[in-house]
């Protein structure tokens, strides 16, 4: 951003809004296509199930998919206090995609920090127990911006598939996070397996949990199998069905909220 005074004003507005947020959980994936937005949305739904107040902030400016997963879209509404987040059955959602619909968002780095700060601080979130932040792929500006804006209340959940390439990229993100002093919750192993031909297969390779944990120096919080109905059936409905897919998210939400074994009916 060009102007220091304007920047300072925005940072102050972010800080004020953040006072009403309990914890920020940033979900990052390094590599695109590992299912980061799916994990962010699934986590948010699962956290809200136990009665928590949950907001979802989509920072994937160029490929916003949170609105799709949560079934919300433009137009947005506003009042004198700011922007009303979209409501998705108990969740409060904000995304650049709610402004742009299907338009592409070409944008260079210098404006992104201000955009992210505005998007968060203009939204009337109210009190939140959790703000789940869907980070963009890679180590782009939005990632560093998110660390800077939410760092003091944030922890990081990394998403990867068992594919060696995805693991390599997530490893870099882990190193960056450590350098920036952000606390790492752990790793979600997405698309770890799939049911096919009456058995279980591992289309992206089979990751050894122990090896993975020592490689990333982080705990595997959950394994989520490949669910072919994602994108066809509503995510919320998929998470209501019993099975490994919903179990993965339930255990993820439990570790994030620190309520292991404290299940509600």
């Amino acid at each position, binding site marked *: 951003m060009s102007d220091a005074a304007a920047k300072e004003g925005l940072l102050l507005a972010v800080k004020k809004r953040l006072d009403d947020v309990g914890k920020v959980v940033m979900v990052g994936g390094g590599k695109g296509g590992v299912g980061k937005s799916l994990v962010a949305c699934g986590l948010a739904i699962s956290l809200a199930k136990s009665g928590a107040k949950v907001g979802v902030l989509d920072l994937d400016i160029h490929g916003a998919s949170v609105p799709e997963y949560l079934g919300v879209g433009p137009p947005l*509404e*506003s*009042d004198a206090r700011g*922007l009303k987040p979209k409501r998705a059955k108990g969740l409060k959602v904000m995304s650049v995609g709610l402004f*742009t619909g299907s338009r592409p968002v070409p944008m260079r780095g210098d404006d992104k920090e201000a955009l992210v700060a*505005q998007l968060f*601080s203009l939204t009337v979130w109210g009190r939140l127990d959790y703000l789940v932040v869907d980070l963009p792929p890679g180590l782009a500006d939005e990632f560093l911006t998110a660390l800077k804006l939410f760092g003091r209340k944030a922890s990081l959940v990394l998403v990867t598939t068992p594919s060696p390439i995805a693991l390599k990229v997530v490893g870099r993100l882990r190193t960056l996070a450590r350098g920036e002093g952000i606390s790492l919750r752990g790793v979600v192993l997405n698309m770890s397996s799939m049911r096919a031909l009456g058995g279980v297969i591992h289309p992206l390779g089979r990751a050894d949990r122990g090896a993975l944990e020592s490689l990333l120096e982080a705990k595997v919080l959950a394994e989520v199998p490949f669910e072919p109905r994602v994108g066809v059936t509503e995510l919320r409905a998929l998470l209501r069905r019993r099975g490994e897919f919903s179990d993965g998210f339930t255990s993820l939400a439990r570790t994030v909220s620190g309520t292991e074994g404290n299940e509600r009916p």
Partner: protein
Amino acid sequence: MHELSLAQSILDQVAKMAGGRGIRVLEIGVGELMQVDRKAFEQAVKVLMSGPGFEGAALRVRVEKASFSCRRCGSKWKMADVRKQLSGLPDSLKVREPEDRASPLHFLPYLYTAFVRCPKCGSSDIYAGSGKELVLRGLILK
């Protein structure tokens, strides 16, 4: 219409900088790209200035011109062209305000690259050099 929240954010910044001292003069710049109603904004600031610390303070609000340039072909243009382009925005992408509909840039001026193109070559690789931010331009304490 979120003028009140904009006003509040500026006054938070003022209060922080003043550190308890009274305010003599307050100058605020509003970027043209934000399409803020200057009078409504000024009114909102005045309402919030009725609290302690602002007695007798002079307020100046200035709309700062937006200027755009194209990285592809180098041409330059102003807000009038942008208004023309924004008038073609589908209703579905306008933000519903209590009494009106507003362009997304009213809220997120930095999102201009999604809605504005170079009038000459059509490129989205454009740059707004000024007029996109709300900024505290001057503050004189008592």
